[in-house]
Structures are given as C-alpha cells and as structure tokens.
C-alpha cells in the first residue's frame, strides 16, 4: 500500500470506585434498572455535584502508571449536549485542564510466531481526563428505554497521540493498556460490561508525507476484535476513496459488527458545538505533591517490567512469561507460590500448563475461563506439590493426578498422597522381585535389549508400573532393570 495509516485512540475506562463521581450513590454492574440513583444522579432541580476524591486519586494513579505528568491544578468544565441518557444534558469533564498530561504506553507488536517475542515500542499519550458516565439506553423496535444506574460513574478518558499505524498496533496497544490498568487495580476493563470502550480516529496519508490526512472517527467499538475489524475496514474504505482521486470526508462513523461495516453518523458540519465552560459548582483540584509522590512510590510493577524480570532473574522462557504476565492473577499467584518454595521454573510450568488446563476444563462452555479465586487453588498447594516432586516423594506422573485432585478438593498434596497412598515406592526388595519376574516373563524383550534396542526395556517396565500403581520411581527402575539384565547373563 502506498499509504501510511495514522490512528489515534480515545479509550474510556470506568474507574472502580464504590460510589459515583459526584455523589455517594453506589454503582454495581448488572443491578436492576434505576435502582442506583439519587437526586444528583437524576439531575433533579436544585442538586449539586460534590467530587469523590477516590476518583481523583485513582485516576492520578492511572496517570502515574502510564507515565503521565500529574497536573498541579485540574479543573472541571461542562460539555453541553442534549441526549436522553444525560441527566443534566451537560457532562462534567475536564476540557481545559485535565488531571494527567502526556504519558506513554509500552506495547509489544506481534512476533513472527506465537512463541517468539515481538518488537516493543512506546505509544505516546496526549492526556487522561476524568468525566462522568451517562446512563444507558436500550432500544426496542419502536422506542428507547433509559436506565440511569450507570450515570455518574467516574470515567477516565485516555487520549493517545496519532501514534499508531496499523490495526495490529491498535490491538497491541489496547491489550497493553488494559493489562496496565488491571495491574494497577483501577478497573477490570471488561469490555462486555462497558468498563472499557474505545473510539478510533483513522486517517491515511501518502508515505513520506508529513501532513495528516482527513480523519474519520469510529464510535461504539466495544470489543478488541471490533477495534481491529473496524480499523481494517476503514483503512480499505479510505484507500479506495483516495485511489479514486477523491477526498475523505471528516465524519463520525458507527461500526456495525453484525454487518462488518461502518456507516456515517454525522459530518463535521453537523458536529456538536459543545459550548464548554468552567463548571461553577465545582472547585479546582490542586494536587498535593506529597500525595502524588506517595502514589508514585506505591505503584505496582508494570506488566512488561515484570515479564523482563521473570526472564532475566528466573530464566523463564518467553512462552511462559508471556502467559504469566498477561494475567495479573496468574502472575501474582506465581509470585506467592515462589515466595513459599523457590523453584521458579517448576512453579511457572505448573501454573501455565496444569493450572490453566484445569481452569479451562472446569469452566462452563461459553463462559470465560474460571478465575483462580473461584476455585480452591492456593499458592501454597502448588508450592508444596513442587516440593514433594523435587524431593522425590512422588513422580511427575503421579503429580498430575495429585494436581487434579487438589484443584477440585483444595486438599494439600501431602494429604492427598497420604490418603491415596501415592508416595513413590522405594522398597527395593519388592521392586527387585517384580523386576526379576518381568525379566523371566519377557525373554524376547530381554534379548532385543541385549542386542542394543534400548527401547525394548519399556516392555518390562509396563507390568511393573502397573503392579506398583505407578509409584515406582521411573529412573530408578530403569537403572535397576539394566543392572539385573546384565547380572542375568
């Protein structure tokens, strides 16, 4: 393609506070319609907003996590527009003086294969500001219904610079951002629940040009795959227009996931005239530098920093760290287990392989995978399991069985081993007699082994494992069989 793609994103993230941004009414996703309102939420005559400091503090934390500068003073503006889900018909937002300025997000571009780490780069942010969420409209065939439960939930709007250049980069950015926000505990970023929403601005320009092309804005992108498809659709649409020698019209478009296409909502001429002005009901916030510093000092480790630490300190491979660090729950679980028993590779392997397998096996079809906290799994169980394997009490083979058992029951590996009598059988005389029996019963396999076919010994091992219910230590058994075969000559 002869065009360079330029993408800027605006991401709205619901900040996880107990109460709303300008009143103490609670918020909870999925509550019965209009049960989380009060006079302020409904914009009743005479009501006034009072800022929830928790929203400021969490947004500042988000800003610090994203490398933003925290403004000395931030202020509140009214954005005036009529919409039936907007109780006051203006939105309290930060237009002139946002809380967080600049910032950047480290992203990982797709590698050449799934198991190969991709290139990292930093995407520049313009700002993060706070605003209030409107209510929620749902549509029937003939009218629309308004639920104001969501109205007034604190929203952080994260605005990037036009610093992304493909749908893959946009996806990588959203994944990285989402992970950062979850690591910081600011939001769960569940796009299906509307906790994270994305608008995308897309424009094309001839490669080498330093003038930005005319952009269109895509609204209503409520999943990462929608972001990807809508950007790809828009790139093709604009390229076709430009190829035909025509101009792209600056407009807002709505992505229709069902039709896999977008349609025009309004052109620039019809664009809103928001009549921003400083809100007279709210006072400016001047950020206490000590509080900002305290937030900064208490910031959690960023996901990519954690991944690099795992690779460098524990020599864990990318295939493991990329899974662990994509999920704070897994990664925190790993760290807790590691603090109990220092064997990073084995613990990481149990988490990435056995734990993930069990989580998905126990999830309902169609639901997202179970979370560890929904199960009886505990970090100390994994730590103990690795310990008993490494100290030779059970084999790795038996460990798998123990894992499945403890995942379901939450019992400690030692209890399970005891209860089921699974500890590795090191009674040499019993095993020796089983071995002698096997050698006597399998002259053909013994002969083949003697002729140099090392695998032939497996035929002898099968019956012994069966007889010991798998408790024989496989390595020790190998050595013993070889010794006995040689002695039998």
């Amino acid at each position, binding site marked *: 393609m002869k065009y360079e793609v330029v993408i800027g994103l605006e991401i709205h993230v619901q900040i996880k506070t107990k109460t709303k941004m300008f009143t103490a009414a609670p918020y909870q996703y999925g509550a019965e319609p209009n049960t989380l309102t009060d*006079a302020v939420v*409904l914009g009743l005559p*005479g009501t*006034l907003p009072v800022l929830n400091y928790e929203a400021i503090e969490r947004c500042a934390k988000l800003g610090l996590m994203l490398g933003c500068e925290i403004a000395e003073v931030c202020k509140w503006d009214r954005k*005036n527009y009529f919409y039936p889900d907007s109780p006051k018909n203006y939105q309290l937002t930060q237009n002139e003086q946002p809380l967080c300025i600049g910032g950047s997000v480290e992203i990982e571009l797709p590698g050449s294969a799934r198991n190969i780490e991709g290139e990292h780069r930093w995407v520049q942010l313009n700002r993060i500001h706070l605003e209030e969420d409107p209510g929620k409209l749902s549509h029937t065939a003939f009218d629309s219904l308004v639920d104001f439960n969501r109205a007034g939930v604190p929203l952080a709007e994260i605005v990037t610079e036009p610093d992304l250049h493909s749908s893959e980069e946009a996806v990588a950015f959203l994944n990285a951002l989402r992970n950062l926000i979850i690591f910081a505990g600011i939001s769960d970023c569940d796009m299906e629940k509307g906790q994270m929403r994305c608008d995308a601005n897309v424009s094309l320009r001839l490669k080498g040009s330093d003038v930005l092309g005319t952009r269109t804005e895509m609204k209503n992108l409520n999943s990462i795959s929608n972001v990807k498809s809508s950007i790809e659709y828009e790139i093709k649409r604009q390229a076709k227009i430009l190829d035909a020698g025509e101009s792209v019209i600056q407009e807002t478009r709505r992505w229709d996931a069902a039709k896999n296409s977008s349609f025009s909502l309004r052109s620039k001429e019809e664009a809103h005239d928001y009549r*921003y*002005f400083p809100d*007279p009901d709210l006072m400016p916030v001047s950020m206490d530098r000590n509080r900002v510093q305290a937030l900064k000092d208490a910031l959690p480790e960023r996901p990519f920093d954690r991944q690099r630490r795992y690779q460098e300190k524990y020599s864990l491979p990318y295939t493991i760290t990329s899974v662990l660090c994509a999920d704070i729950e897994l990664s925190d679980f790993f760290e807790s287990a590691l603090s109990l028993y220092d064997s990073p590779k084995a613990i990481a392997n149990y988490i990435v392989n056995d734990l993930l397998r069990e989580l998905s096996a126990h999830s309902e079809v169609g639901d997202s995978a179970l979370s560890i906290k929904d199960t009886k799994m505990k970090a100390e169980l994994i730590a103990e399991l690795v310990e008993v394997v490494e100290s030779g009490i059970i084999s790795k083979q038996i460990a798998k069985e123990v894992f499945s058992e403890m995942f379901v029951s939450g019992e400690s590996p030692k209890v399970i081993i005891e209860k089921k009598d699974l500890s590795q059988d090191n009674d040499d005389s019993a095993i020796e007699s089983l071995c002698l029996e096997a050698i006597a019963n399998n002259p053909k396999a013994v002969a083949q082994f003697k002729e140099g076919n090392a695998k032939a010994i497996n035929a002898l091992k099968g019956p012994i494992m069966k007889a010991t219910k798998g408790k024989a230590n496989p390595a020790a058994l190998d050595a013993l069989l070889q010794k006995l075969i040689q002695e039998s000559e």
Partner: protein
Amino acid sequence: MSDLFYSDISSLNQGLESKAFSAVELMQSVIDRTDAVEAKINAFVDRDAADALKQAQASDERRAKGESLGAFDGIPVGIKDILAVKGQSLRCASKMLDGYRSPYDATCITKLKEAGAVIWGRLNMDEFAMGSSTENSAFGVTANPWNLDYIPGGSSGGSAAAVSAGEAIVTLGTDTGGSIRQPAAFCGVVGMKPTYGLVSRYGLVAFASSLDQVGPLSRNVKDSALLLEAITGHDPLDSTSLNQPKVSYSSALDQPRKKMTLGVPKEFFQQGIDQEIKEAVEKAIDWYRSEGYAIEEISLPHSELCVPVYYIIATAEASSNLARFDGVRYSHRSKDAENILELFSKSRGEGFGEEVKRRIILGTYVLSSGYYDAYYLRAQKVRSLIRQDFEQAFAKVDAIITPTSPTPAFKLGEKNNDPLAMYLNDIYTISVNLAGLPALSLPVGMTQNNLPIGMQIIGKAFGESDILTVAHDFEINHEYKNMRPTI
C-alpha cells in the same frame, strides 16, 4: 391577637413561650390574612393551609413538652417556589415543572425544619428567577401591596409582597442579580443577599450558579438577621459553600459599636436615577453623617460594565443549568414529539416562557463556538476587575451605601416589551452578586406616589453583621418599619 400576622419574630416568640397564643393560632392568623388579601396580591402559587396547621400543631406539642427548638419554633416562613421542599410542588413559576414535586429538602429548608419553623406555601416569582417584576410567572403576576397596579419587583416578588402584606412572618427569596433586594425595596421591606457561599445552594434550582444565593426578607432588620442565622452554615452537599464560623447576627445588633465608615460610590448617583430616590438615599446618608458615621466618596469605576458582564455570565450559566428541563425524566413533555429531537425542542418550546427562552438563546449564543472568548471569557475577566473595585473600596470603608434600584416600582406591563430597559433596572444590585458580597435593602422613604424607596447597604465578604448593624441603627431611629400598606 388579630394582628399576629404583622408581628415580628421576637414578640411572637415571647407570646408562644408565655402561652399568650399557640403556634396553631399564629398560623391560623397568617392563613386568614392570606385568604383575605391573596385575591388581590397573588403572592403564592401554591399553599397548603392544612399542612401548615399540622406543622404548627407539632410545634405546639413540642413546646408543651418543653422541647421547643428555639426562636423559630412555630414561626411561619414563606418559601420562594425555587427552593425544594420534600413532598411539595417545585415549579419555579413555570409550566415546565407543572406537577413536579421535590423528593428532597433543600439544605436551608432542612435547617428551618430543624429549627421548628412552619414551612408555609410556595411564593410567586419570575419564571426560573429570570426577571425583575414577577410578570414572568406562568401563574400570573403578583401585585405590589402598596399599589395594586404596580409590580412588586422580582424575581422574589411573591416573597417581598407576602411579607409586606402580612401573608407570612418572614420569607426566603433568592438573589442572582438583585432578586431579593429590588423587590424588598419595591415593597418596603428588608431583604438581604448574603455573601456567596454563606448559605447552601443545595436545593435551590440554579439560575446562575456562580451568582445565586438564598436570603431572608422581613419587615425589620432583626427578623432578617434571625432568619439568616437559621439558614447559614457549611454544607458538604454544596462545594461552593464556605466553612465559616457561625455568627449570631441578631445579637450583634444590640451591641453598641463604633460608628463605621460608609462609602458612597459617585457612579451610583449620576445619570438615570429617579430624583426622589436620589434625595431619599442622600437624606439617609446625611442622617448617618449626623450620627457620627464617617462618609467617604468612593469610586467603583467598572460599574457601568456590570450589566453586560452579568447578562453574559448569568445567561450562559442559565442556558446550561436549564438544559435538564427536557421532558425526559421529569418536567413537561410535548404530546407532539415524533422523535427525540422534537421531544427536546417541543417540550422546551412549550414549557418555557418568553423571558426564559430569550435568556437561554442569549446564553447559548455567548458560549457557542467562535464567541466564547469575545463574550464569556471577556466577561469573566471584567468580573475580576469589578471585584477589584470593591476590594479597593473596602480598604477604606466598612460598608457602601447606594440606592437599591434607580426607580421605584413601575406599573404592570410598563417595561414588558423592552428587555434591555428591564435589565438596566438591576444596575445597582448586580455588581454585588458579581463580586460575591453581602448586601441588603432597607426602606428609607416613600415617593409622592406612596411607593417605598429602598437603600442598599453593601458589606465586605462575610460582613453581614456590619451591614445589619448599620441598617438596624437607621431603622430604630425611623418609622419606616411600621409602615403598612392599605390593601
């Protein structure tokens, strides 16, 4: 007992305490008086006598048990139809809010209830407090008790007329650009706008948020002082409410004080002022001088810019504040709306009166793309200059004396078709709101036409005690507080 409705709070309180009469009897006296004159005055847009008597009954029961809540227990307080009272209608004298009842109490109402006051009726006003004559009410104009062909002033015209006509002991009004002081002047009563932030705005339906304040109207200075101290105090529900130590304004009145220095701004006595008003206020100033007050001429050089600054800021804020009246969650909904756009524009077109529409259009325009800097931002900067004028003046004086209004009350319909002339009527009062200062209007004379003349006393921020004392000193040495209109 027949004239209880014209008594002041202190004597009513004595009578209630000594069981000379009950709160129910007091309330009945006010109800009877209201029933007698209301056909002529139309001060109320709504009133529920049974509910008021019930509140009075509760007050009597408290007092009988020795659990009186204080000076306000059992005193009927009239409420402007812009302050939210739980369970009562709240219409701001607009068709837009027909049928609406507030599910919560304004903070000032909560405080009055806690003081035992009887919350009495809904007082007429200009629709959404926009106007200076009460002619912009959707429920008919209120008459000036002194001359029924004249307007009572506005927007708190009902609050002023009710006090003047004995339909309430005291009332609450709101003042954005003079809406308490100007009707107080026109009706010959005391009306006070406190320092911005002294009284919570929570539950006051916003007209211009950075200017609105709730304040008292009464027949004498002490009653205003008492009502003010009942409603002040920091409110966590209003972020612009200031955390000030509680002051007993009424007890300050009786303490002897040094004679203060009074400033007289020359700009307020120049062109456009009615001669009788000028003379009455100058006579009052002479009295102060003769009593040993120092009188200093001062200058408020940006005074003539107050009207444009005020009408830009107030209409801009109003255009946004009144956006919530859209026919969706509450308020009038048009029956003819085919789609959501029409639901908004027809409901608002049908629900709002002419003056409200004019101000919404003006406010929307001054904020619209391309005009913000020339109008709104510039007005905010000039507002700083206006405040600086006052700061400089108050470096030299303790209070400032001006007329309240350039003219006395005018006839019904006289200025209806000239909004600019109506706006210029606020010229002496609006600078006080722009600077956020306290000011009161005090009756200081009568015109030959037998219409009251009001004098404005402006104080420093939180200088309520000063201006009340200055006003009280004049009042107790003159007879105006005992003037009653013949209705």
